[in-house]
C-alpha cells in the first residue's frame, strides 16, 4: 500500500515540476539568433540551439507549460463537469430511460480524435479549440464512467441504510457515493491525460498545431525531424519529454487504480 502512495506522490510532483519549470527557463524560447544555429551545449544554451538559433532547453520547458497546461486545465474541467453530469444522469435523479442510455452510448462511442477533427475543421487550429475538443470528448466519456459506477454503488446496502436514515438524494450522491468512486475517477482522468498528451503532440506533429507562435513539443519534434541529419539530438529531447510525461500519467493512473484491489 505504502509503495503505491509513494509512486502517486512522485508522479504528482513530477507533473507539477514539468508544468512549472518554465519559470526557470534560461532564455526567451522565441528569441531567434541566426548566428548561433545548431550550437552544442554551452553555458548559455544548456541543451544547445535549434535551426533558428533558439534555446532548446527553454523551448522544452515552455512546451511543457503549453501541453501540460492544456491537460491540467482540461482535466479540472472534465472532473467538475463530468462528475456533475454523471451524477445528474445517474438513476437516483432522472431514473432509467433507455433513450438517455442510448444517446450517451452513441455519443461516447465517437473517439476523441473525431471530435478534434470536427472542431479544428470548424474553428481552426489553436489552443482554445484543442482544450474545447479535449474537454468535450473526454468529459462525455468520463460522465459515462461516473454514471455507470454511481448506478453500481446505488445498489449497495450502505446506500439503502443512508436512505432509510433520511439522507437526501444529494447527500447520498456527493457524501456517500462520491468518496467510494473517487479512485476510479482519478484513474480514468490520469489515464486519459496520458492519451491527451499523445493526441495533442501527434496532431501538432502532422501540422495541425496549436497556433503559429506557440511553443509545444509536437512542433519541436516536427521541426527537429526536418533537420534530423544535421543534429539528430534535437529530436530526442522533446520525444523524451513527451514519453516521460505520458509515462508519469500512465503510472499514476494504474497506481491509483491498484489502490482498490487489496494487494
Amino acid at each position, binding site marked *: 500500500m505504502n509503495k503505491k502512495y509513494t509512486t502517486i506522490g512522485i508522479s504528482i510532483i513530477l507533473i507539477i515540476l514539468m508544468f512549472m519549470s518554465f519559470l526557470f527557463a534560461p532564455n526567451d524560447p522565441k528569441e531567434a539568433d541566426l548566428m548561433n544555429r545548431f550550437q552544442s551545449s554551452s553555458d548559455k544554451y544548456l541543451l544547445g540551439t535549434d535551426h533558428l538559433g533558439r534555446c532548446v532547453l527553454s523551448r522544452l520547458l515552455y512546451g511543457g507549460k503549453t501541453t501540460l497546461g492544456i491537460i491540467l486545465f482540461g482535466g479540472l474541467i472534465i472532473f467538475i463537469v463530468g462528475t456533475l453530469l454523471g451524477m445528474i444522469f445517474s438513476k437516483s435523479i432522472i431514473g432509467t430511460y433507455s433513450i438517455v442510455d442510448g444517446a450517451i452510448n452513441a455519443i461516447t462511442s465517437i473517439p476523441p480524435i473525431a471530435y478534434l*477533427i470536427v472542431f479544428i475543421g470548424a474553428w481552426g487550429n489553436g489552443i482554445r479549440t484543442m482544450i474545447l475538443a479535449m474537454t468535450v470528448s473526454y468529459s462525455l466519456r468520463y460522465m459515462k464512467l461516473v454514471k455507470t459506477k454511481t448506478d453500481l454503488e446505488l445498489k449497495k446496502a450502505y446506500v439503502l441504510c443512508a436512505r432509510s436514515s433520511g439522507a437526501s438524494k444529494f447527500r447520498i450522491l456527493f457524501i456517500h457515493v462520491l468518496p467510494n468512486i473517487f479512485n476510479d475517477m482519478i484513474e480514468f482522468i490520469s489515464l486519459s491525460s496520458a492519451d491527451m498528451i499523445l493526441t495533442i503532440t501527434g496532431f501538432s506533429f502532422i501540422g*495541425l498545431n496549436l497556433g503559429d507562435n506557440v511553443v509545444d513539443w509536437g512542433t519541436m519534434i516536427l521541426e527537429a525531424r526536418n533537420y534530423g541529419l544535421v543534429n539528430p539530438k534535437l529530436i530526442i529531447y522533446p520525444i523524451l519529454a513527451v514519453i516521460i510525461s505520458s509515462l508519469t500519467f500512465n*503510472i499514476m493512473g494504474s497506481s491509483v487504480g491498484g489502490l482498490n484491489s487489496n494487494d
Partner: protein
Amino acid sequence: MRVSKVDPATAYAKRAIGNPTELQIENIRISMGFDKPLPVQYFSWLKGLFQMDLGKSLVSGYSVWDEIWKAFPKTLLIVGISSIIQFVSIIVIGSLMFIIKNKLIRRLFKILCIVGISVPSFYISTLFLDIFGVKYNLISVTNNIGFKGSIPPAVCLAVFIICFYVPLFYNGLIKESNEDYSMYLRCQGLSEFKILRNHLIPNGILGIIPSFLQSIGLSIAGATVIERVFSVPGFGYLIVNSVIERDAPMIHSTVFFLAFFIALMNIIADIINERIEGERS
C-alpha cells in the same frame, strides 16, 4: 461545421481566383448553395447522402464519394492487417507471460507495456521509417500502398493496442486459472500447457474480444496520424487534408463515414458479446 466563422465560399473563392471581388464570392455562394438557411443545407446534404451524391470536393473538384471510395480500402487494409498482427501478438505475448514464472521477466514485460502505451505512435512510425526505410532501404518511404506496403504502418498501429491489451489478457488468464474448472482439469492430470492451450486461452479471448472489436473501429481514427507519416493516401490522410484545406463537403462526409464505421464495429461487438453471454449461461 457550418457555425465556423470561416466562410467556406470566401475560402473557396480565395483558392480558386486568388483575389476575389464581393460579387464573385456572392456568385460562388449561390452556386454552392451556402446562401440558404442551415436546416435547408442540412437536409439537402442528407438527401444527397441517400442518393450517394455527397457533392464535390472544394479542393480537387472530384466527387467526394469517389475520393472516399478510393481511399477507404487502403485504410481498411492497414487496419485489417494490423488487427491480425494485434490479435496474434496479444495471445502469444500474454501466454508467454503466463508460462514464464520468473518474476523479474514478468515485471519487465509489464513495464514494457506501460512504456509502449506512453510512446507516441507517430514517433514509432518515424523511427521505423528512419531505420528500415532510410538506413537499410528495406521499405519505401513514400507511396506505401498494396499489401506489402501496408505492413509497416500496420505494425506501427499495432504497437499501442498490443501494449494496451496484453496486461488485460494476462490478467484474464490468471483469473481463469484460479477458477474451479481449471483446478478440476489439473486434478484430471492434464499438463499445464494443455490446460492453457485448450481451456484458458479460449476463455481469455472471450474476455477481451468485445472491447478488442471496438478498438478496431477506433484504429481507423488512430490511423490518421500514421497514414500521414507513411504518406499513405488513405482515409485518415483525406480527413487531415480536408481539415487543413477547409474543404467543407469533404469534412462532413469523412467524419460521417468515420462515425458510421465505428458505430458498425460497436454493433458487431455488442452482437458478439450477447452471443458469448448466451453461450456461457
